[in-house]
Structure formats: structure tokens, C-alpha cells
């Protein structure tokens, strides 16, 4: 199948691509055909800044097991030490 399902979030922070660091604006998350991984479907994340063009992108393709582990690890790390999203405003 071709899911076409895409979750999008406004993302604040930075990512490092082939041309160096860039400020993030957007992340797309979808479970669909990968470009590189030898699997029918992977959980794909595109970290983007459309203002800087389509090539300003950091892409990852994760197996479902890896993606679920990553999601749990992100929440575990935040729950352990982060002060909460209201404590610090997002940089722009």
C-alpha cells in the first residue's frame, strides 16, 4: 500500500544536513515506502525548513520497532529531566 498518511508538526530547533546546521521549521512523520531502507514500509521523518528550499532536509527511515523505541526514548528522556514545554519559549 501507499499510505499517503502524513503527520506534520511545526518544529523549533536545529538540524544538521550536508550543508551544515539549519533552523528547523517543520517535521513530517509518515509510515510509508522508504527511499533507501530495504523494507516495504518504514516510519519516516523529514526535518525541514521550506524557506531554505527542499534540499534543506534531514531524513530518517526507521523500522517500526526502532521508531517505537525512539518515541519511547524521547518521552523517557523528557520526562526524566526536561522542565516542561511552558518553561522555555521556542526560539525563532
Amino acid at each position, binding site marked *: *500500500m*501507499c*499510505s*499517503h*498518511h*502524513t503527520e*506534520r508538526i511545526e518544529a523549533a530547533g536545529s538540524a544538521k544536513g550536508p550543508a551544515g546546521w539549519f533552523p528547523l521549521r*517543520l517535521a*513530517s512523520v*509518515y509510515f*510509508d*515506502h522508504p*527511499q533507501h531502507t*530495504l*523494507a*516495504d514500509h518504514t516510519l519516516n521523518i*523529514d526535518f*525541514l525548513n*521550506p524557506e531554505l*528550499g*527542499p*534540499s534543506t*532536509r534531514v*531524513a530518517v527511515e526507521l523500522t517500526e520497532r526502532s521508531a517505537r523505541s525512539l518515541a519511547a526514548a524521547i518521552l523517557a528522556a523528557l520526562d526524566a529531566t526536561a522542565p516542561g514545554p511552558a518553561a522555555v519559549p521556542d526560539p525563532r
Partner: protein
Amino acid sequence: MSDTAAGHDVATETVRIPGHQGDEIEAYLTRPPGSGPFAGVVVLHHLPGYDEATKQIARTFAGHGYTAILPNLHWREAPGASPDDAAAAVRAAGGVPDDRLVGDVDGAARFLRSLPSANGKVGVIGYCSGGRQAFLAACRLPLDAAVDCYGGFVVDAPPDGLPLKARPIVGLAADLSCPLLGLFGAEDSRPSPDETARLSRELARHGKTFQFHTYEGAGHGFFAVDRPSYRPEAAADGWTRVLGWFGRHLSAQ
């Protein structure tokens, strides 16, 4: 440059063609050797983009005596970007709008018909999202043959809440302008065998010329030689059916 496909020398070049509303877009053009006359085939790439594997498909058509053109449907969002970056940009923007797709296929078909080597006949084939787009183009444009390879969301709508702009287009079936070949995988869920059966009934109800084939042991993307979804037996039989379909419906006589 020249390349070899299916045992024949073919010429390839990247060209610019007028697309929807006269926009200039990039396209990959492949031609058989000789002066023709040749039928034309518009090849519509899958959601992952205007990639090497789809260019190889276009070259295979040229190797079998067709002038084939592969419009870069992601050109506007990402001119000059790599196919994967372009696909990501288009996905983030909600996909290729249907009206723009029809305009781009119309531009590609007109370009093919304008070539001195043309026999006047033009077919369209698409894969994955391009399968749906091939059906859409064949319903909205005067074409001579069409092939839908596992296009989803022709009959069923995408789930609610998706940014995807594609809507069902089965309601256009009465306007299908040419014979349609559909090649699907029994293990696919978009489109599912139930969905393609409903499309088949709708085409039959309108008295359209069409032929559908669903391959056991194959799912979505069975033509994709660079992906684990590739199913050699289904793809080999599919190629035979595609070339037979175009041979039957795109000859000048």
C-alpha cells in the same frame, strides 16, 4: 546520450515542456532509434518521485519502439532537487493537485504528438500515486490507451484528517476516453482487491473497454525493481500485458 534497454539503443535527454497553465516543467524524454513513426507514452512516476527506477521504465518503452516522456510532477515545489527531497517537499505540501496533474499530462501528450516522429497516438501509464493519476488523466483528456498500476484512492477516499488532497475519482468513469488496463496486487490494501472490483463494475456499467488483472503473491509496487516489493513473476507478466495493450491500442492503423 544513448543507452541500451531491452536490447535496443535508445536516446535520452532532459527537456523542458509546457505543463499546466503553461508552466515550464522538466521531463525525461527517451526515443527509439530511427525516424518512426512511433507512438508516445506518458509515464507517471510514483509518490517517491522522479527517480532512476522510473527513468529506466521510460527507457524500456523506448527500447520497445515508443517515444516515452516522464514529466517531473514535483518540479514546481523542488526544481533541481534530488528526487527524494522533492518528494518530501511535495508530501509536506499535501501532494500533487489533480488539476495541475491533468495539465501536466496534457502538456506532455501535446509535446509527444508534436514530434516529427509521432504517429499521433499517445498512451499514459502510472505507478502507485501515478496509477490513480493515469486513470484521472484518461478520464479528463483525449488519450488512446491507459494503464493504471496499483493506483489507490480511485474509489475509496483517504482516511479523514490527512493533508492529502487526493479525492476519489471513480465518478469520472463515464468520461474515460480510452481503453484501460489495470494491474494490481492481491495483497495490496490501497487499492484493495475489493476496491478494484468496484472500479471494474463501474467501468462495465458504462460500457468501457478495460482489462484488470490481480496478481496473487504480489502487493503494492511489484514493478519496482529497486524495492523489496518487487515480484519478478508479476512484473514480467505485467510488462508483457502492458506492451501488448499499447501495441494493440497505440498502433497507427
